[in-house]
């Protein structure tokens, strides 16, 4: 009998890539991110980072476990509500409020995941969508969410009681720091033995079961992690815009995060980030003209599914490989 530990597949060979080039590339990106607010409107950048994080959280689930959740807005939106309420009504400091929001999202993720992983594939997607709609109605009716108005004028507060986040530039560097740490965390998760098991489940679930893995538990843990990270993105967004509203829990939001990940590239670490920034840019560009944002998003969905299912990162892969940035 094979013991569980020896069944973990070896890490994919990334040896041929010159590690220095990869590191250099990441460092260059980071330098750009640090200097970006000098040239680009910081609030736009923060919005992009929040959605990039949201998409990365979603991509963790779709890309590495193969679970398509159509209800991630419930984690994003509810975490925003909890954070907003904690800051505004209870006067908590931002880091505590964010922690509370993430905790709420993870609890919600535990319940929703526990229910949804009872069914597979298409049913999983429909169940998560229905649960998210349920939570949308709860948000619509619960008094503390203030219905159609949302929780407005959420103060950003002082980080650890010391650093004033009211300053846009300070807020930007805070969001950037959280984003970088979260992305490192996701990268760590997918390259860990746990992540290898997730990929094994994605590629061949019956085989993973026959090797003795408690597949349901792995799926549930991945779901809770993804929900927590989506919640983190929601909490950040709520502090950036000082608003938590029904838009964040609506099914459109669940669809948008699917689009970001699909557009960027499913199953890649940077894909969702690229997709997130692209979708936010499109939104900003077409915001003024009625329903065209929705129509364009639909068109991108159709094009992505029909023509390039590997996303932008997939399209850029040969170029990145030539430069020795990826393996």
């Amino acid at each position, binding site marked *: 009998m094979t013991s569980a530990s020896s069944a973990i597949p070896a890490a994919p060979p990334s040896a041929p890539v010159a590690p220095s080039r990869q590191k250099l590339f990441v460092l260059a990106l980071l330098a750009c991110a640090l200097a970006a607010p000098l040239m680009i409107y910081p609030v736009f950048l923060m919005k992009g980072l929040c959605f990039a994080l949201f998409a990365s959280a979603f991509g963790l689930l779709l890309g590495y476990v193969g679970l398509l959740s159509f209800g991630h807005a419930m984690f994003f939106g509810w975490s925003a509500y909890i954070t907003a309420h904690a800051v505004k009504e209870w006067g908590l400091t931002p880091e505590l409020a964010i922690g509370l929001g993430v905790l709420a999202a993870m609890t919600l993720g535990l319940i929703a995941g526990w229910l949804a992983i009872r069914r597979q594939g298409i049913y999983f997607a429909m169940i998560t969508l229905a649960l998210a709609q349920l939570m949308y109605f709860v948000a619509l009716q619960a008094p503390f969410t203030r219905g159609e108005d949302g929780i407005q004028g959420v103060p950003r507060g002082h980080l650890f009681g010391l650093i004033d986040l009211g300053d846009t530039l300070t807020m930007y560097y805070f969001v950037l720091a959280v984003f970088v740490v979260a992305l490192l965390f996701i990268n760590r998760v997918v390259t860990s033995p746990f992540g290898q098991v997730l990929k094994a489940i994605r590629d061949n679930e019956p085989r993973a079961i026959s090797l003795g893995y408690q597949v349901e538990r792995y799926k549930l843990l991945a779901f809770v992690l993804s929900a927590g990270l989506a919640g983190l993105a929601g909490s950040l967004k709520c502090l950036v815009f000082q608003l938590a509203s029904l838009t964040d829990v609506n099914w459109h939001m669940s669809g948008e995060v699917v689009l970001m990940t699909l557009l960027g590239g499913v199953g890649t670490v940077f894909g969702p980030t690229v997709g997130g920034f692209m979708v936010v840019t499109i939104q900003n560009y077409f915001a003024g003209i009625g329903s065209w944002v929705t129509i364009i998003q639909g068109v991108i969905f159709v094009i992505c*599914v029909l023509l390039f299912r590997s996303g932008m990162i997939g399209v850029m892969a040969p170029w990145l490989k030539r430069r020795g940035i990826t393996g």
Partner: protein
Amino acid sequence: MMTIFGIPAAALFGQLLLGLINGAFYALLSLGLALIFGLLNIINFTHGAQYMMGAFVAWLALNVLGLGYWPSLLLAPLVVAALGILIERTMLHRLYKLDHLYGLLLTFGLALIIEGLFREGYGVSGQPYAVPKELAGGWNLGFMFLPIYRGWVVVASLVLCIGTWFAIEKTRLGAYLRAATENPTLVRAFGIDVPVMITLTYGFGVALAAIAGVMAAPIYQVSPRMGSDLIIVVFAVVVIGGMGSILGSVITGYMLGLLEGLTKVFYPEAAGTVIFVAMVIVLLIKPAGLFGKGA
């Protein structure tokens, strides 16, 4: 005035009737979804948009061509089915060999496009559509007032559902369809043109949604958003019933409509959520769904 559990009987029966009508739409839509899923292995997210298009075809036919309700009842499903067949031939059929989730994503994108275009053209506010004069008015049944049009919707949808069930379970064409659902390769080997059957099935499922849309037009207002909220509820209905059985999806549709109607009487705050709560309970007790054959 007669009361039941402290609720005026007229109000109770009125809400039950409304529930039955909602159930009729759930049944028609989940029936179409189940048919399409059976043969195409695709969950048709566009279904809600196609229901909305059915209502809009009726509205446009009346306001542009001057065609009334009855011609629309035939015209709308034909137009929407033709568009559906176009979608199936040009896009969906490329995805059959891929993961089923891509079908969901593609049809979601199409739903966004269709809804967005109609919103761009006609705004978000609803357009009224009058009840046809043959069905205007109502009967006083003694315990409640029955608007004739609502009675007609319930009867018509029952006839459509039973007719579809009969066509699939009792006719030769239906037998081919069921065989192709089980094993398309083998059915092809017998010389039956499965790809054409798939295309027509998609057209038929979509046509059912369009008929539902026309029937809904005089009850709800014709608005670009009427489909997207409904389709999510119908997904919950499908999860509850399981898509394995035609009759199962019809029965589940009506049952949940009634449940919603009852909730509106006794606990109105939960009327919007009761179907989702029912889904949670079913998932806990019978994860495969009421009529499901497996996960």
